[in-house]
């Protein structure tokens, strides 16, 4: 692995800025209007919030090593979004219970992933992929026909609108910033975080130094599920509608975001700040493609190619011959 002098999150942010500046040259863009540019930038970041939150759980499982990944995140987002939608029905006072349900449901699905990975020794990729099929099956059952529901005003107020008249920052961004700080605390200032990095680097050393590797694994996947549930709650609060494919478009970019942010896909090293910067980069790319009116197929190819390039830079394993 090449050693960069700049830390990856900073490099990612730099990339985001460059991409944004380049986008100014496109037609229908902000041109040289600073005010419009700022508002567009804020919009991008606001869009990036949802990807960022969904990338949080992904960050955790990837740091935990052993080819950790969570492919069920997309379907968990859809499921919890639907559950919230159906539960809330426009009433403010059901919002908190709905949030709790989202978190718990997400955590349960995550826990099932964790059990399969830890006790049944199924590869995380395959386990979470299989689980995502099961969750999708559940979604179809819940959703057959159309679901009726409505998002509560307080959710839209907090998530989609700015905090107040004087501060034009959307609530979602503030939520994300607080979330980011909490994630940093979790990773760098708790025993859980230290142990997470430890098992990501070397599970044998971790166990022989007293870390409960099995427990950590279960906790990590459950937490990832919970965070995806939170993501679903936020997403429905922003869009106000639910679709079968609501969460799926976030899945691949969430993994790419983590990779851009400098978290090693082999585990043991990384940060959530990096994933946040990565989420902004990925959202920029997607939004640029939309502005250029590129079809979904091009979006997919660009994303696939981007991840491929990223892992070629960041993800080289040890050579056979040293």
């Amino acid at each position: 692995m090449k050693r960069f002098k700049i830390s990856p999150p900073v490099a990612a942010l730099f990339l985001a800025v460059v991409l944004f500046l380049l986008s100014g040259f496109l037609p229908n863009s902000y041109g040289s209007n600073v005010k419009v540019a700022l508002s567009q930038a804020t919009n991008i970041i606001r869009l990036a919030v949802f990807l960022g939150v969904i990338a949080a759980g992904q960050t955790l499982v990837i740091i935990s090593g052993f080819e950790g990944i969570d492919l069920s995140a997309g379907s968990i987002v859809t499921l919890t979004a639907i559950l919230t939608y159906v539960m809330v029905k426009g009433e403010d006072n059901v919002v908190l219970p709905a949030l709790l349900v989202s978190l718990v449901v997400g955590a349960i699905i995550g826990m099932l992933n964790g059990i399969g990975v830890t006790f049944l020794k199924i590869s995380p990729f395959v386990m979470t992929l299989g689980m995502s099929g099961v969750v999708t099956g559940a979604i179809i059952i819940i959703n057959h026909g159309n679901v009726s529901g409505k998002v509560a005003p307080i959710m839209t107020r907090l998530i989609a609108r700015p905090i107040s008249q004087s501060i034009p920052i959307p609530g979602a961004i503030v939520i994300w910033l607080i979330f980011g700080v909490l994630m940093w605390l979790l990773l760098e200032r708790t025993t859980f975080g230290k142990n997470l990095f430890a098992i990501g680097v070397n599970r044998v050393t971790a166990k022989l130094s007293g870390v409960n590797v099995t427990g950590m694994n279960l906790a990590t996947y459950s937490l990832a599920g919970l965070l995806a549930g939170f993501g679903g709650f936020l997403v429905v609060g922003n869009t106000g509608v639910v679709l079968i494919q609501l969460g799926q478009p976030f899945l691949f970019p969430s993994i790419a975001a983590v990779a851009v942010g400098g978290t090693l896909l082999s585990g043991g090293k990384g940060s959530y700040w990096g994933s946040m910067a990565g989420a902004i980069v990925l959202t920029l790319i997607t939004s640029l493609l939309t502005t250029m009116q590129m079809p979904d197929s091009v979006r997919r190819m660009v994303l696939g190619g981007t991840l491929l390039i990223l892992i070629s830079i960041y993800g080289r394993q040890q050579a056979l011959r040293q």
Partner: protein
Amino acid sequence: MKKRITWDFLMARYPAFFPLILLVLSIAVNLFLQPNMFVRETLNSNMRVFLPLIILAVGQAIVLLGGGIDISVGGVVSIINTILATRVGLDGSSEKMWQFVLISLVAGALAGAINGFFIAYLRLQPIITTYATSFLYAGLALFILPNPGGGIPADIANLYRTSTPLGLPLAFYVIVILLLIWMYVSSTRYGKYLFAVGGKADAAYETAVPVTRVQFSIYVISGFMAALAGIAITMLSGSGNAEIGSSMTLNSITAVVIGGNAFSGGIGGVTGPVMGAVTLSLIQNIISFGHINTWWETLVKATIIVVALAAPGVINLIRRRRV
């Protein structure tokens, strides 16, 4: 002191044992629900539906044997389908069809070579690399054919559907040929290399096995087989759809796992996965026949897959507890 004849020993020597039992069981259940299963028409109809997955499973089996995994197979199937549907079209000529069949096989091998390059030569992780290319390939398929449509000449599709040389389904012959080829390959030096690289790559390297080349080759084979499967499924459906391959990836992995191949590599073969693919297809058949509420079908099928993937792990867990 006696050598340890353990379950591992048995599974290593006769990996197709367990999937055989499963296959027999699923045939029995299927027979019960569909008594005319072995009648020529029904058998032919079933086999040609199963064939694409069987072919895909063969390719995936070889990749897993060699210590890798290929998540992009579904994407390659889709690309082949869209190429055939658009380039040949419903009114294409037979020559054009066969021309593009050849091109498809090359394309599949090329797609596999791309995977092989990144994994064997740049030494990237197989799972994440083929995940990235799966997106790339799926996007390409969608680009070639944004909306379902197009197709292949009706008489070629009919050829596939109705061919029963000597009374047996065409699919049957394909399977037999594939198995024969595997029997040959597994007794060549290359076959030994495959097991060695999948079993313990560093030991193979120290024994001067050309590990990198072997690792590259398994992805080319997988891409080729995916293209073959794409041709089969196009002949089956007769039309084009860019999403046609998306569910096949997980199915192919499940079929190989049911078939007794170790996820880590070096154990198993191709016979088991073929049986696994048939078993999985039969199970999906059973569900369709079982008159389950349509809404529940997806959930049930997905749960079966998870159970199938979990089964080896559960068995191992029980064994370890007993010891």
